[in-house]
């Protein structure tokens, strides 16, 4: 597949100290081995090992530090950095005192994108919103969103407000992932059929690296609105523990007298979680169903041919 020749990138950019490394660590369950604040700007090399949605590679760049070394390196490597970009995620620190400068750096990144990867999708995250008083958050976010949308023309940017201390970060990244999947509606209708056939209470589709929810079906109202993030956190913790033993997580079954939950590898980029509230259905039956559905969904991924697979799309 041609995707292996030129890896498409997801650029995570923003000013130094805006929270990108923490964000990456939380979303991708990367252990941060040091206090990144003390060591200054993050210089992430292209050979990042964080894979996302199959073949997308996550690159982290600090944009706009005072460091002249950073500036020079940035300008000389600019074309290299901005080539083959699928997604640009730009992080703004809401409590930054230098709004003009932030916007200036953002615009120069956009220029580089226009030159090198004009088809890239642009997302802006207004981060650290927990530091703003609750009654002012909507107002401040609306202001920033208007400014950013105006500055981004002719590119269209989608803005989210995020904080690592509430559900907004998870939801923002889930929305981003949702928009990166080309045939997501088709996926959702197939998922619904699958769930109804196997008589499941709820079926979730997770992205493999980050356990962000791509799509879900539920047959009735659930009590806990935050269950997706909780499952994601629990499984990522479990993955961290597994990786310490050089083991990798593949599947899980949780059962009690009220329900049975199955988490298993689904397609090459996704995990599935099936929740059955009828305990009389034996596990083996559900596992067979999941295995058969797997084949069908993998075909869906390849249905438009090699050029239109789940993770690559050329418009």
């Amino acid at each position, binding site marked *: 597949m041609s995707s292996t020749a030129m890896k498409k990138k997801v650029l995570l950019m923003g000013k130094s100290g805006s929270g990108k490394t*923490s964000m990456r*660590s*939380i979303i991708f*369950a*990367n*252990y*941060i*081995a*040091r*206090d*990144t*604040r003390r060591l200054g700007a993050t210089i992430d090399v292209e050979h990042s090992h964080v894979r996302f949605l199959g073949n997308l590679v996550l690159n982290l760049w600090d944009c706009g530090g005072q460091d002249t070394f950073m500036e020079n390196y940035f300008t000389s490597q600019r074309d290299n950095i901005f080539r083959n970009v699928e997604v640009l995620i730009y992080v703004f620190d*809401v*409590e930054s005192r230098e709004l003009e400068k932030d916007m200036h750096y953002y615009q120069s990144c956009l220029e580089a994108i226009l030159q090198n990867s004009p088809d890239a999708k642009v997302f802006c995250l207004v981060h650290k919103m*927990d*530091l*703003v008083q609750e009654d002012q958050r909507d107002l401040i976010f609306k202001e920033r969103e208007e400014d950013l949308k105006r500055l981004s023309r002719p590119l269209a940017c989608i803005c989210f407000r995020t904080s*690592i*201390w509430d*559900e907004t970060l998870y939801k923002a990244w889930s929305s981003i992932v949702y928009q990166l999947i080309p045939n997501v509606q088709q996926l959702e209708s197939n998922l619904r059929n699958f769930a109804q056939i196997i008589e499941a209470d709820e079926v979730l589709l997770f992205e493999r690296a980050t356990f962000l929810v791509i799509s879900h079906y539920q047959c009735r109202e659930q*009590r*806990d*609105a*935050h269950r997706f*993030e*909780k499952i994601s*956190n*629990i499984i*990522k*913790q479990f993955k*961290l*523990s597994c990786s310490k033993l050089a083991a990798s997580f593949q599947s899980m079954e949780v*059962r*009690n007298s009220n329900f*049975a939950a199955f988490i298993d590898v689904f397609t090459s980029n996704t995990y599935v979680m099936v929740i059955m509230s009828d*305990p*009389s*259905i*034996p*596990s*083996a039956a559900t596992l067979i169903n999941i295995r058969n559905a797997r084949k069908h969904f993998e075909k869906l991924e390849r249905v438009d041919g090699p050029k239109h697979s789940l993770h690559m799309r050329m418009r």
Partner: protein
Amino acid sequence: MDDEWKPLLASERAGESYPDRGVMDSLDPKSKRPFHVEPRNIVEDDVPERVSAEASVMSSRVHYYSRLTGSSDRLLVPPDHVIPAPEEIYVYSPLGTAFKVQGGDGSAKNPSIVTIFAIWNTMMGTAILSIPWSIKQAGFTLGIIILISMGLLTLYCCYRVLKSPKSIQYTDTSDWEFPDVCRYYFGAFGQWSSLLFSMVSLIGAMVVYWVLMSNFLFNTGRFIYNYVHNVSMSDSEFGTNGTDRVLCPFPGTDQGSNCSVTVIFLNTNTTGPTVFDRWWSKTNTVPFYLVILLLPLLNFRSASFFARFTFLGTISVVYLIFLVTLKSIRLGFHLEFHWFESTKYFVPEFRVFFPQMTGVLTLAFFIHNCIITLLKSNKHQANNVRDLSVAYLLVGLTYLYVGVLIFASFPSPPLSKDCIEPNFLDNFPSSDVMVFVARTFLLFQMTTVYPLLGYLVRVQMMGQIFGRHYPSFFHVFTLNIFIVGSGVLMAKFYPNIGSIIRFSGALCGLALVFVFPSLIHMISQRRRKELRWPSALFHSFLILLGVANLVGQFFM
């Protein structure tokens, strides 16, 4: 037994009724289920509280984030504003119920009355002894006007100090004190200058304390010696006669009077300075005796022992009020109003020396470096401004009461009002029993507050310069030698507490009362684009007043 035929890894047969199962063997998957108890309140019949969805997801977040960094890394530790309030924290018991944590988060919350009293107690310092003298320096009417105005002015500046952390957006300022706010607005300069001026007020207070302690110790010793040896001092001191003697220790030093009073000690019965007088002298020897008592106390690592004695200060002030009331009843009022000219016995109502009073009052009403901390423990934070104003009112009334009564009851026909001493207890002989009691109370109180002040100076200085509160015995001892040495020098060569108080008051008041609060308020208003002409004019005027206050100390 059919158990032998069970495969090693039996896949579970769901739907079986579990009580039908016989003996549970160790391979039975059901016995490997995690320990789970349905939440049930075994004490009462109330429906047990369940944790909310938000709290549960926050808990999962905190657990997950803590796995992402090293245990000593503070990067992903939840900040204070994200952790729920203590009222929303639940404790899970192993039996499954959740109950709320009762009580506060460790910092005691006091009702308004206690807060007001704490502020009053902290503000009441040795300046109360100088209020009658300062009223005399400014003139009676002008003095009262100045006392009320300075009280209102310093109250407004204190209000500004209190509100200054709130104007900082985007940052959690819940544990900031005023020097932290100065550092935020003015950088390192703000931090160091606010520390410096705070030191001025503290070290100034410690020097005043040393002078006063030497004074009180001297008088106490003198009283005991005279009582034991039945010596009467009445003839060698110039003053009134009778049971309620009032002294004029330095007659003839009044300013601006035309007549000079010659004092001739005509008593030939008394011998020259006795042995006792040589070894027990207010300026020559007693300050050094204090070193033996107090220098060791300053070197203690912790001052919490001395903090227990704050009640002594309250008792001293209450006793002073009682003493003043009694004396003024006995002496009666002696007031004559001469508006601008001074007479032999009275001072004019309006005098040019009023900056001395403003200097003293700046220190008398000074609490700006710790008001934020004091009001943090107020139970109803919405009442902070009201409680602060009430405290200032009570402090002002106390000062007014003591100052006016002493001034008014000072026996003016034989003595001139100019004789009122910067420490009004000096106007009473050492043989006066009630004043002796007052001096003893104050001596005790100051002996316990002095190490506390020394501890504050040490913590702030050592903390800022060396990063640790107790770098080594040598460092701390050097600092203490310096502080004690300055106290001893002042007590020996210039024991005029009025001057010490007014200079240190005007100096530290310049920064912490007048300039920084007003400047910070104007800057924050300008950042929010809310600065209007009246506000800018008024606050600039306040800054000018602070500067004029300091300059006036040197010229008047």
